[in-house]
């Protein structure tokens, strides 16, 4: 009872302190958080309209039945999988510069997972029936449906990427060493799990024989290759920001190592894309219609053509920037390359992947899909929510990592209070 009381007290103190941590910061921090909050609120208002009337309020139709939401979902799952690119060097190769920052990377993966799950939730027509998806309570179509696998995989990955960093941070908060025998299996599990979530998402598309654009064996490797480009790219940028606003020291060598890994992934990505393009264009069957729509335009429908070529240009440029050591090791070109990759892979893997799968549709109809204002606002809202969650997590995790925020503070405080009370009680007795 005594220890439970103490635990509750300590936990309450912890939460109080985290609230103080997240509510105090520089002006830039306040500006960032409030602007994100504003975007979130606008997004929510638009989502409510969609919830009331139905998905009619989006621009999706029977012909193109998945749009911006699922495009963003695909991209974000890839980003989340990229945390493994930090986990492998940190824990398997004990690469010290990365080992210090891997917890932050895992929290980033968790925020991406939250965003991905939210994107699926706003895409559902009947969110109020979500409980049908739960295993045992609902009627999950487990081995057959890839969406069921995806639900399990994504939630499992979210759990891992919250459990591991929280465990490590709590240990760090208490100044204790983590029990590696306990936590290392989870960490090692998260590596194949990360590969798994993105493979399952790829298989979701891959298994549809009705859509020849997606029914290519090369899809899962392509997904992994592009995931391992985009996620680390945004991690590089985030770590530079963290380096600037906090006391965490992230060595340049860590960033450059990650950039090197991105270079290899981008090569693989471009190679696999080239292989697909060769197969479609050389054999020249009817099934290349979707590729034609994407890269050239089909029957005067060419909405996506400028976008995909911009993405190709950005990807190739970024690849060169990352490959050449001198540009890789200069922060300005490194950041430029990262930006190119983030946008380029988003186009290639988001709209440039989901939409051509539906054009032309199985009966040959071509309908061009362009997201409308509501979809854009809801998407921005979800991205803002993910960024806000990540910011708040960082606001707590970084002080724990640097040792600023630790249990010793609390203990010191308690001891001080105890001695003050004792002194006061002495005075009372004397009176």
């Amino acid at each position: 009872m005594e220890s439970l009381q103490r635990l509750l007290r300590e936990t309450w103190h912890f939460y109080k302190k985290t609230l103080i941590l997240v509510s105090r910061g520089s002006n830039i921090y306040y500006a960032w958080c409030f602007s994100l909050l504003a975007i979130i609120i606008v997004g929510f208002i638009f989502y409510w309209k969609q919830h009331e009337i139905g998905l009619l309020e989006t621009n999706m139709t029977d012909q193109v039945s998945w749009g911006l939401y699922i495009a963003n979902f695909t991209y974000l799952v890839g980003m989340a999988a990229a945390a493994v690119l930090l986990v492998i060097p940190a824990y398997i190769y004990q690469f010290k510069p990365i080992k210090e920052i891997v917890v932050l990377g895992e929290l980033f993966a968790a925020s991406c997972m939250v965003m991905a799950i939210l994107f699926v939730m706003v895409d559902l027509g009947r969110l109020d029936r979500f409980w049908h998806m739960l295993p045992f309570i609902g009627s999950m179509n487990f081995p057959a449906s890839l969406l069921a696998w995806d639900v399990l995989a994504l939630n499992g990955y979210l759990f891992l990427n919250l459990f591991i960093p929280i465990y490590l941070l709590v240990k760090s908060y208490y100044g204790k060493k983590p029990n590696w025998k306990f936590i290392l299996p989870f960490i090692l599990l998260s590596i194949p799990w990360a590969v798994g979530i993105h493979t399952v998402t790829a298989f979701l598309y891959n298994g549809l024989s009705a859509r020849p654009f997606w029914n290519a064996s090369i899809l899962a490797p392509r997904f992994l290759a592009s995931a391992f480009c985009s996620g680390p790219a945004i991690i590089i940028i985030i770590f530079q920001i963290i380096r600037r606003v906090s006391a965490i020291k992230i060595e340049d060598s860590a960033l450059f190592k990650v950039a090197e890994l991105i270079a290899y992934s981008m090569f693989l990505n471009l190679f696999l894309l080239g292989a697909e393009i060769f197969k479609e264009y050389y054999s020249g069957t009817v099934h290349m219609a979707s590729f034609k729509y994407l890269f050239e335009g089909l029957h005067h429908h060419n909405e996506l053509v400028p976008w995909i070529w911009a993405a190709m240009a950005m990807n190739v440029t970024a690849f060169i920037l990352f490959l050449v050591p001198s540009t890789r090791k200069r922060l300005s070109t490194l950041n430029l390359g990262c930006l190119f990759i983030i946008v380029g892979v988003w186009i290639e893997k988001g709209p440039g992947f989901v939409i051509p799968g539906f054009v032309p549709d199985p009966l040959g109809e071509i309908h061009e899909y362009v997201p409308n204002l509501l979809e854009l606002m809801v998407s921005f809202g979800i991205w803002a929510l993910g960024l806000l969650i990540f910011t708040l997590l960082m606001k707590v995790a970084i002080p724990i990592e640097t040792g600023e925020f630790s249990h010793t503070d609390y203990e010191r405080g308690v001891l001080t209070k105890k001695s003050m009370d004792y002194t006061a009680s002495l005075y009372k007795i004397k009176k």
Partner: protein
Amino acid sequence: MSNKNYTRREFIRNLSVTALAGLSLPLLSSCSREEAEDFLQKHFLEMTGEEKERVIAKLERRYLEQYGRKFQISTQEALPETLWGYGLELSRCVGCRRCVYACANENNTSRYARQLHWIRVLRLKRGNLINLEDSEHYYAPETVPEKGFIYLPVQCQQCQNPPCVKVCPIHATWQEPDGIVVVDYNWCIGCRYCIAACPYKGRVFNWAEPNLPKDEVNPNVHYLGNRPRMKCAVEKCTFCIQRVRQGRYPACVEACPTGSRKFGNLLDPKSEIRYIIERKRVFRLREELNTESRFYYFFES
């Protein structure tokens, strides 16, 4: 003493937080008991006979309110020893679309604003039957058939190996014993994975609340077939499940002015569809996808 203060304060805090959480649940969920019942309604295949009757009674009441007509909602099961097959004679289809609108009228689909059709008639140039990419869906000539074209109506093919059933994450769509692929509209969450998976574009989605005028409803419905649907549920041709399980031809078969549409029981050697398969040259769309469709297209001889 200070310890007691802590525990009391923290206890009050914890209590208020849980109270807020507890109150918000019923506030967030709908207010009425019927809506709560709707929320918790089971999957059709898991309902007992009594539960089904309760649900049917609730729906009949609701439809009476909404449309002012007494609905007859059947939950008739599949007849024994039946496997429905459909035949369509391409040499006779003239592309008049009477089947499309007969189906819409029979099956209470949304119309006018938010129009939904279960049948789509494609116009193909003569010389091409398989490459559907060159099809025209929106032809609107003065008269049909037009010279140099043939017409190919497509609807849900009631595959024996349905990709849509495979991919549905919650078993909201399944294949009945008589071969009809059905949807439990109250179970569907609207993820539209089945629409992405169908190679024939047989399934359509209610993007909003369906628009069905009161004076155009058909009150003879089946729970798994043509009862009026709700927003964000997937729907498709059900071979007029409300008709065929009583031995009647589907609405499209009766509407076709050239008699191009044929229907029957594949397990009955004397049925029309068996006659067609045994004597005519039949083919099915996208046979290479192994969907084992039950929709046989054929020509005169």
